[in-house]
């Protein structure tokens, strides 16, 4: 399998992925898990003062402050939920791009699900059976006509 994938790798001209950074990172970490957790958090936390940007994208001072805090918290060994609840305590639910689940926001999931179930049910129920009185030849003719253009 390994040889096979090497082959495909050559064929597609793809690159085996690895990252090593010779220069100093702006936010240094002890390991890759911490780094990716930090990346994830800085994308999912919202800059409270900006128009609509996450921490990673924003150059605002508050975003830099929050990123530094996230960095600090991640280095201190906090997991994702802990960092998020730390931020929510200070900046409210607003700071996290995933909405909390409550009696109002539950509709974000319920309504589309309900729509899919009801609409599919309606689609199945409303179909009208093809009458069987056509002979094979007629049926063939109709199919041909229908396939003529999409």
């Amino acid at each position, binding site marked *: 399998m390994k040889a096979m994938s090497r082959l495909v790798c050559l064929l597609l001209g793809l690159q085996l992925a690895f990252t090593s950074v010779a220069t100093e990172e702006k936010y240094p970490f002890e390991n890759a898990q911490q780094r990716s957790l930090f990346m994830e958090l800085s994308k999912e936390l919202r800059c409270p003062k900006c128009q609509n940007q996450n921490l990673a994208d924003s150059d605002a001072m508050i975003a830099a402050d929050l990123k530094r805090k996230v960095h600090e918290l991640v280095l201190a060994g906090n997991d994702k939920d802990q960092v998020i609840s730390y931020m929510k305590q*200070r*900046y409210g*639910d607003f700071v996290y791009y995933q909405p909390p689940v409550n009696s109002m926001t539950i509709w974000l999931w319920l309504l589309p699900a309900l729509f899919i179930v009801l609409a599919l049910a309606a689609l199945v129920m409303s179909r009208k059976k093809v009458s069987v009185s056509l002979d094979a030849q007629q049926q063939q003719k109709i199919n041909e006509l229908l396939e003529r253009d999409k």
Partner: protein
Amino acid sequence: MKKYILFLLPLVAFVGLLVFLYQGLFSDPRAHKSSLLEHTMPAFSLPDLMQTERQYSAEVFNGKVTLLNVWGVWCITCAIELPYLTQLQQEGKHIVGLYYDQDIDPDFGIKTVSRVQQEVTQKLSQLGNPYAFNIFDVKRDLSLDLGVTGAPETFLIDQHGRIRLHHIGDLNPRVWKNKFEVLYQELVAEQ
């Protein structure tokens, strides 16, 4: 009949949506409630801006209704509200400054503390000094704990050191009258 209800559904949904769109037009999309209301001031230990050897902690807010004003000399709106804050102070309100400077920064700071003190003194002598004292939020940790998003912002803190109001933006006569006055008088009366 059942059929008509189904066909009416999109219209009903749209009318419902309209109500909120209409309300939304008249509210500020950025205004949001602070999540620290009714909490006591977070613990901190920070120096005085002018005499950095002097340290403050959260206990400094006990026993007195306080207006905590977040500001900095680099902030233009802060300069606009300084004269009004001074007027409030002259009316007998206890105002404390929470000072932070974006140029003193672990990442990209270039300013020294004495330089900042000099600028602050100059600014306050120009526009009025409403502050009983200024807490120097060196690394903006307290600001972060308070959910501050920028400057200027003002907190109303009661005599037990609890946060009762968090205002984002400048403080002016209109804001004072609509948002602060009643609660402030209540808190003072309790005292």
